[in-house]
């Protein structure tokens, strides 16, 4: 005797899901998860007790292609990602970022600018920014107005 169960009610849905997956799988469009159409480079920022850590994905970049600077709490990363010299006609697929790029990052806290350390290994940039010691709050005297 067939008894209705909620568990079975989903089977049809799963069939549909599978069918749609199969259809999608047979199409040749850009797969999801491809890191496309987003800011280059992507940057991650982490805060630790006494420092910040910034990481960025810069595959193919070398030290000489990269320019880092810091001024007034803004860290600027810029560079040029050169592509192989290939005529556009020869491209079958082009998903990788090409050309010049720049990122200006507002730092959330004061850092010791002289203490910045950066390394670029296997296309990953890591910048360590030591936090500046807490500045003691300075009282601002308020003068009484009027005569």
């Amino acid at each position: 005797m067939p008894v209705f169960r909620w568990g079975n009610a989903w089977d049809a849905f799963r069939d549909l899901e599978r069918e749609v997956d199969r259809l999608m799988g047979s199409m040749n469009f850009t797969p999801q998860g491809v890191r496309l159409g987003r800011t280059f480079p992507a940057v991650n920022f982490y805060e630790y007790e006494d420092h910040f850590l910034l990481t960025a994905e810069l595959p193919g970049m070398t030290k000489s292609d990269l320019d880092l600077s810091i001024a007034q709490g803004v860290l600027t990363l810029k560079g040029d990602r050169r592509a192989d010299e290939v005529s556009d006609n020869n491209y079958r697929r082009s998903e990788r970022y090409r050309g010049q790029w720049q990122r200006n990052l507002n730092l959330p806290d004061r850092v010791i600018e002289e203490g910045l350390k950066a390394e670029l290994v296997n296309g990953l940039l890591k910048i360590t920014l030591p936090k500046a010691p807490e500045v003691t709050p300075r009282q601002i005297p308020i003068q009484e107005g009027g005569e």
Partner: protein
Amino acid sequence: MNEMNNELVPQNDPERMVPATSEAPEQRLLFTPPIDIYESEEGLVLVADLPGVTLENLELQVQDNKLTLFGRVNRYVPEGMLGQHEEYGVGDFLRSFILSDEVDHERINAKLNNGVLKVVLPKVERTEPRKINIDEGE
């Protein structure tokens, strides 16, 4: 689309979680790396962005007519952070491609440089048509 199907077809490897194994109990993220494919005199060239992947952690495999690249990225951010803002996830890279018969599987070569993988897929050299002698039957 058909033209591309002839030679090198990127497979859809949707972003998904890799099932945890006993040696790696933590769940690892998996991403599809961006690629370029272009034609050159040497053959087709495939370029993939694999930041953080080292030579030891890269597997490149051809099985039947499927080329698969898998790059492992070990977690490089120390624990104990107080806060974080992430624009990208840290995880492994996987993508596979269907090669056409035109690719000479034996002569595929690859280089990894600063997190960029470059695979050259030379075309099979066309052999001259050979005349077949036909003997006259008796």
